[in-house]
């Protein structure tokens, strides 16, 4: 066993001729919040999606708590995991998407309890009791019977977080969780994420919320053109003098809270 929640070793990824990740090496420590920042197209979302095997890396390995995800090394080189192996590897992670991806034909309660009923084979009552507790955690108990279309963006994203938490993952992955939200609504989602961080959840967050990365992150990773340029504590990353590429990037985000770290 390793102390890292996620170990990323020599991961590269390309779409056709376009290289999106170049030889990434990164250790995600347990119980900490690691934020991936960088300009659009830098590969940060792709890297996060590779951790959940929603994208397949072309080379390298990703270990979740020491267990490979997506590919395993066999006698004839690496092979794709079977569906069951992949499900087991993924069971440790909860994923939150930019576009929420709630299922529109289920209520908030249905969205959160679905995996408990279908995957854990719990009874409806048992699954809904647990789902209700998760919804209470994200302060949406009274909206449990609303459909996604009847909820605001911020509420939908909080339901999505509750859904990801339902199966008790040890690691939460967030892919730009507030990018599809009005500025007014980002606060409520970030608050839920802060609470999770305070509880010691291992989190990897792709975000443009520099203020969040600086104040909640234990580690900030800066990607540019598919390369992990550097990663360190926010104090060190944002302390002057800064890396010129980061400086240039932060200039474009001054109006989004980056002034907090000036």
């Amino acid at each position, binding site marked *: 066993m390793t102390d890292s929640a996620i170990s990323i070793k020599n991961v590269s990824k390309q779409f056709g001729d376009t290289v999106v990740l170049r030889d990434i090496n990164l250790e995600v420590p347990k119980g900490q919040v690691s934020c991936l920042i960088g300009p659009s197209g830098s590969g940060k979302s792709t890297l996060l999606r590779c951790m*959940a095997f*929603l994208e397949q890396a072309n080379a390298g390995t990703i270990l979740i708590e020491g267990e490979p995800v997506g590919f395993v090394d066999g006698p004839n080189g690496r092979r794709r995991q079977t*569906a069951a192996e992949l*499900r087991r590897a*993924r*069971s440790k*992670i*909860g*994923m939150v*998407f930019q*576009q929420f*991806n*709630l*299922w*529109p*034909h289920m209520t908030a309660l249905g969205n959160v309890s*679905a*995996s408990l009923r*279908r*995957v854990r084979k719990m009874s409806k009552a048992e699954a809904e009791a647990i789902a209700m507790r998760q919804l209470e955690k994200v302060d949406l108990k009274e909206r449990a019977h609303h*459909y996604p*279309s*009847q909820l605001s963006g911020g509420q939908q994203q909080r339901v*999505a977080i509750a*859904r*990801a938490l*339902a*199966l008790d993952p040890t690691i939460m992955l967030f892919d730009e969780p507030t990018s599809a939200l009005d500025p007014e609504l980002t606060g409520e989602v970030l608050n839920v994420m802060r609470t999770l961080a305070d509880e010691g959840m291992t989190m990897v967050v792709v975000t443009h919320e520099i203020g969040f990365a600086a104040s909640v992150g234990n580690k900030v990773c800066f990607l540019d053109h598919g390369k992990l340029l550097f990663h360190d504590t926010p104090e060190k990353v944002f302390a002057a003098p800064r890396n010129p590429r980061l400086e240039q990037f932060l200039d474009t985000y001054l109006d989004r809270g980056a002034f907090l770290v000036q």
Partner: protein
Amino acid sequence: MSFDFAVILAKGPQILSGLGVTVLIWLAGTALAVALGFVVATARRFGGPLINLVLMVPVEVLRGTPFLIQIFLLYFGGPYIGLRLDPITAGLLGISVYGAAYYSEIFRAGYQSVPPGHVEAAECVGFSRLQTILFILLPEMALLVLPPSMNMAIILLKDTALLSLITVPEMTMTVSAIGSQQYAFVESIVVLALVYWALVELANWLGRITERKIAKLSVT
């Protein structure tokens, strides 16, 4: 010359028997076409490029040739390869396979209408492929595929009339035979048109009720 529907309607029991065959072939044929179409669309979606290509060929052939020719080939051509079917079986098989090609396209469009992220979310919480299809994809596409599915069912109903040409004792064959016997050809055609229209309206009405029920269940 005046219309005399009485000579047609006097043969009520015969007409009802023809109507029974029509409804039976239509309902059973549509049910089989939906089921087979769904299987084909699902295999094309998840079976990889080779299966997709292998299944694309029959779908395109069935959609690209007239139904009349298909049933002639099946009924009159079948015996050449040892496939001897009685008219009703041939008719049912013909309607099912022909309909399946179209239903597979309806379900293909349905699959495409579900955002990929909804499937990814299901994968991330551990749903199997089958669970994702049953609990996420099917319900999400239901409202979208229902109107074209009803439309296709109506087309299939009207296409059962062509089965009279391979001697299936369905409504068109029965009523036009009565018309010929009674020298009331036009009357028989009018009666046929009215009965088909009534069936179509009934199907439409059922379709609208179903649509409303599904819409209530899935707020989108």
